[in-house]
């Protein structure tokens, strides 16, 4: 009897343990911890992707839902449900996890696309900056661009800095602006120097040169031709070329002279108005030209009247063909400068009244026209 009771007790015990085991196996937490952890991880990824800044609406929707669900998770932390019971919270978490994963994937792809675009754009702008710098340097026209290259450089530096910070959208904005600056630089060069590529203007310069040479031939006298694009000075005697030297121009020499201090070398028909020998000039020897001539004055007054030249500006003067003072002062503000030995030769071969014709270019295929053509082709290509 006693044995029967003890068997019965044991059987009941086993059944109880079994029932408890089955019950425990059938019970689940309302919010599976691994799911909560996965969403927290997605939130961290979205944070790294700067989702709140680059996709504020998407992140806001995710964050609102996550906060709401987290509140529910906290409220139901101690709740255990049967496995077969419907679990709305788990379903909502699952949907948020899927949505979050989709947002992470989309933003990651978007970020990579932007990164590549930003890197490509920086490389493009750098290539264009290099092209302009090379061509501008070749024709000594950097000053025409004034402050623009610095502004472009600053934008490029900002684009690089934003790129390194992972702010690809801002990097793209900066390099876009740099690109616009480059287009403005190119347009400015075309506007200021386009006459070097103008067949009409070159024909006019060629005519001026022919007439000067004819005058030299007719009067059996010396005449000087200076070409700014070729940076050359040629002496003619009785219509025949006697010598040709390379020259340096004013610091902004390639431009058309407009007023005093602009560093441009004038273009036109002049004459030697005075010879300055040793002790009369700081530049070894100098041939003073009769700039400004009548045509220069007319143009200057016309431009000033139209407001293109400030009223405070003067027309300038003291334009010379001169030598070099010393190594440190080898400079000119708008004149034509020769090395001293060459200046000595020239000085001895010309007289007061010798015609000096200064033109932009002698040939259609001149250095400036080539540089402009190169820029217009290559800046479009890049």
């Amino acid at each position: 009897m006693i044995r029967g009771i003890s068997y019965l007790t044991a059987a009941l015990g086993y059944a109880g343990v079994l029932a408890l085991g089955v019950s425990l196996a059938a019970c689940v937490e309302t919010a599976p911890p691994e799911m909560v952890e996965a969403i927290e991880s997605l939130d961290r990824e979205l944070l790294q992707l700067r989702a709140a800044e680059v996709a504020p609406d998407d992140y806001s929707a995710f964050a609102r839902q996550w906060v709401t669900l987290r509140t529910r998770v906290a409220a139901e932390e101690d709740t255990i449900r049967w496995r077969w019971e419907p679990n709305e919270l788990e379903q909502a978490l699952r949907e948020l996890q899927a949505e979050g994963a989709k947002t992470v994937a989309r933003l990651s792809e978007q970020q990579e696309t932007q990164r590549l675009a930003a890197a490509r754009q920086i490389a493009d702008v750098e290539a264009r900056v290099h092209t302009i710098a090379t061509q501008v340097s070749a024709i000594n026209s950097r000053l025409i661009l004034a402050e623009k290259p610095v502004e472009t450089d600053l934008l490029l530096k900002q684009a690089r800095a934003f790129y390194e910070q992972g702010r690809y959208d801002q990097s793209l904005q900066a390099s876009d602006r740099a690109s616009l600056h480059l287009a403005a630089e190119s347009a400015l060069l075309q506007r200021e120097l386009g006459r070097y590529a103008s067949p009409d203007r070159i024909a006019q310069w060629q005519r001026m040169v022919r007439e000067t040479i004819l005058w030299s031939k007719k009067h059996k006298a010396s005449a000087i031709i200076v070409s700014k694009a070729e940076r050359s000075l040629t002496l003619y005697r009785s219509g025949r070329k006697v010598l040709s030297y390379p020259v340096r121009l004013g610091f902004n020499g390639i431009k058309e002279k407009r007023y005093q201090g602009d560093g441009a070398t004038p273009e036109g028909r002049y004459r030697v108005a005075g010879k300055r020998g040793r002790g009369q000039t700081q530049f070894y020897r100098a041939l003073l030209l009769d700039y400004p001539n009548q045509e220069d004055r007319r143009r200057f007054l016309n431009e000033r009247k139209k407001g293109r030249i400030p009223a405070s500006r003067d027309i300038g003067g003291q334009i010379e063909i001169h030598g070099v003072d010393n190594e440190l002062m080898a400079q000119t503000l708008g004149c034509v400068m020769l090395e001293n030995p060459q200046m000595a030769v020239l000085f001895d071969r010309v007289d007061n009244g010798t015609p000096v014709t200064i033109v932009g270019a002698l040939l259609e295929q001149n250095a400036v026209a080539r540089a402009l053509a190169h820029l217009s082709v290559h800046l479009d290509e890049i």
Partner: protein
Amino acid sequence: MKIRHLLVSIMGACLLMSGCAQPPADQINAADQAVKDAQQSGAATYVPDDYAKLEGLLSAMKTEVAEQDGKFALLRDYGKAEQLAATTKAEAERLKTEAAQKLEEAKFGATQAHHAAQASVTSTLELVAKAPVGKDRAALQTIKTDAEALKASLNDVQMMIDKGQYLGAETKAKAIQEKADAVSHEIETALAKIGKGKAMARKK
């Protein structure tokens, strides 16, 4: 008679209970105001992710209030809404402080970078005044133009700071400093090579 008294007592108790279950208007308003304050202090800009979550909290609180409002008066319980309002308010105040701190940090960073750039540009301009003329006057004139352009760019940085665009201001200031240092280096190299040039006095 006794039963009638009991029923009246129960109804009275119910009425009292339903009278107590009112939305926590003060706490809700305080939470709402705290979120607005956080937003005005720049939280959406300086702690955007936390601010998005704060808006989530505010939204959860309002949803909870609306849920309770929709229930039969006797079953309403605004305890959870009250708790959410308190959490929202506390979080909003934390973000307000953090945003203000980050704004100050950004402002400080931009101002520091501006000062550093100013120092570099001043140093460059001083060097330009001593720069040798050398063989190429155009080069000197270019350096002068560049230095002047850098000086003008400093004004842009100040304007950006005034507008509260601190990140952009700091990045631009650093770019200016880098460029100014490069120009200075160029002049120093020229000075080291050929010494100081003398001033030119002629006009053309």
